[in-house]
Structure formats: C-alpha cells, structure tokens
C-alpha cells in the first residue's frame, strides 16, 4: 500500500513538472514506469454513437464511468426523446418496462453488465438473461433499435426497429479465439 501511494505521488510529480522521482528503493522502476492516459472507452455498443451529441463525444470518452451518469443522464434523455418522441409521454416505456428516465439512466453509465453465473447475452428474449453480457452473435443494433422505437412490446415502427442484418458475414467459432479469420 505504501509503495502504491509513493508511486502515485511520483506519477503526479512527473505529470506536473517532469520531475524525476528519487525514492531510494524504486528509483530505477520509476524512470521506466510509463503512464498511460485515457483516449477512448466503450461499454455497451453504440452508446456514444447514438446518444452523445457531436460536441460532447470527446468529453464522454474522457469521463470515467463512475462520473458519466451525473454528467450525461439528462442529455441522453433529451436525445432519446428527440429520436423517439413517444418517450415524451410519462407512461411510455420500452420493452424492458423502462420509461425515458430509467432507460437513459441505465445507458448513461456506459458499462457492459456481465453475469458470471451462466448465460451471457445482450438480449435473447428470456427476461432473466437480458443484459447479461454481449456475445459475438447478438444482434445488438436491432435490440437497441427495438428498445428505442419498438414500444412496449417491440411491435411499433417495424420499418425503423430492425435493420434486417441479423448475422455476421462469417461464422464464429465455438472455440478460442471465437472470432472468424480475417478477409
């Protein structure tokens, strides 16, 4: 723990004034210990793309998840209601039973929720499996379009809630590394 605090202290010094930390026992380590700084991040598919306005996209990428909801939940709600005006009615919900506030509060913290106890899928129609991971074959875009446009039972706006591309152009493997060989 002490070493960790010392390390962070040295990092701050290096960041601030390019000062070379001279702690006796880890002098060499500090000189070679590079600091890596955040450039891009992602949790759920298409969240930054769809819900973040262009002037906020870089800021969203630089806002760590624990701070995203406070900074972006209300903006996400405004964008959702512009995309799908039915959500402006307080009784309107998506097929997960969420109104605009609940749906955008979930999305504004851009992390993927993953179960360690069994099935992992973005959505497979089985309620208890919803948002339990993201498998390669999950049709995440259609699921998101359905949650945005499909209404309470996925029946509304059928021409906007499915892009009619439901599978990858190559088959996935059931074995490591799972992804298909390149073209």
């Amino acid at each position, binding site marked *: 723990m002490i070493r960790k605090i010392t390390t962070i202290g040295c990092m701050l010094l290096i960041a601030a004034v390019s000062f070379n930390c001279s702690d006796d026992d880890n002098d060499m380590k500090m000189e070679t210990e590079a600091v890596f*700084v955040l450039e891009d991040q992602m949790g759920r598919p298409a969240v930054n*793309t769809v819900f973040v306005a262009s002037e906020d996209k870089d800021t969203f990428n630089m806002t760590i998840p624990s701070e995203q909801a406070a900074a972006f939940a209300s903006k996400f709600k405004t964008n959702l209601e512009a*995309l799908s005006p039915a959500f402006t009615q307080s009784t309107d919900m998506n097929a997960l039973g969420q109104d605009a506030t609940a749906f955008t509060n979930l999305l504004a913290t851009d*992390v993927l929720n993953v179960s360690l*106890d069994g099935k992992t899928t973005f959505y497979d129609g089985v309620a208890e499996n919803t948002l339990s991971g993201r498998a390669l074959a999950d049709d995440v875009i259609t699921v998101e379009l359905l949650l945005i446009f499909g209404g309470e039972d996925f029946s509304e706006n059928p*021409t906007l809630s499915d892009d009619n591309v439901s599978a990858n152009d190559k088959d996935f493997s059931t074995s490591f590394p799972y992804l298909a*060989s*390149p073209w």
Partner: protein
Amino acid sequence: MKTSKILLGLASIALVSGAIIAADHIDAPAVKGGTSDITDFYAFQGEDTDNLVFVANVQGLISPTDSQTASFDENVLVEFNIDTDGDFVEDYVIQAIPSNDKMYIYGPATPNETGANSTLLSDMYKSSVAITPYGTTAITATTNASSVSGVKAFAGLRDDPFFMDFAQYSAIVGGTATEFNNPGADTFAGTNVKSIVVEVPKSMIGGSGTINTWVTTKRKQ
C-alpha cells in the same frame, strides 16, 4: 406514433450528432480512425464455462489490402476494466500492450491506480502471445505463471464481428430514406479489425454474480 414525427426526430438528432458511426467505430473526433480507436467490445462466457472471454477490437474497416500492413500501436495500452462491487470503479484490470511481434498481457489483477491514468501491473502478472501474422493460422497461448495461471490470449487481425446496415441507418438519419431495407446490407462485411481476445478463469474476476466491465485505450506519455 407517426413515422413522419420519428423521422423529424431522427433528422434533428442527425444535426446534433453529425456523422454517426456504428458500435463505437470512429465514435469521437479525437480518436477517429487512429490506432487507439476502439471499434467494439464483447464479454461472454467461454467454451469452458468456468471462464469469461473479453474481446477488444481497434482500428476498424481495414480492407484485405491494408491488412498486410496494419499493426498494433506500441504506445497504446488496451485495458479491460472490471467492477465487481457496483460502484463503476475498476476492481480488476487486464492490460494488453504490444512490443515487437508479441502482445503482452498483464492480469487480471488489482490495478495500481483507478481512473483515467494507468501504469502497467507488476511483472508477476505478465504473460504473452505472439501476434498472429496476417494470413496465418491463429496463434494462441495459455500461461502457467502462478499469479495468472490459465489466462489465454490471442492478438491479430480478425473479420470484424460487428454487423449492421449502417449505410441505410445513415440515409434514414440523413433524411434521404424513410425505412430500413429488407434484406439489409452489412456495411462491415468483408472488413477486418485488430483484435485482442483474452479468456480468464471467472475465479480471478470475482467468481460469481454480475460484473460491470468496459474497455479503454490509453496512450503512453
């Protein structure tokens, strides 16, 4: 709801969002198309159900021609972040950084620090896999280093697993189309990504319950 009203909504979103691109491909001006640009992130149960698989893809829309020269950036750290207690702060990280022809994998382990800046984990958590050259069979490696025994890794080009009629989506939000085509056309068909796949025993990342996870790219200063 009337379709015209939705289209109006879509058009107004298009105005504020500018070019809207796919899962996370070229999602923000500062990283667009660069070596740190994340295209996609997946996390799912492995073939061995005691394991969880993490996939990070970067540098999207690589054509077969460009695949000959596409490479990972040695200054870009790809980091899988894992929150096990619901506060959206990483309790474990898995780090991947290339050097020469290898991808070095650190962890999973408790990070040295949380948040926007990272340093590499201790060497005791390090393993590596040769980066698979384009056009050759996938090279995989499973480490038996005691602190991270059982961690399996792959790094190299793969077919982009993402699929979407992005072109038609763009046309709809741009106001030149009113609905998706049926069948649609996969805009990402025939393109590759640089992919890092790491499979870890679930016991190393909390064991049971639900985790929150996200991927980051961080550049060496």
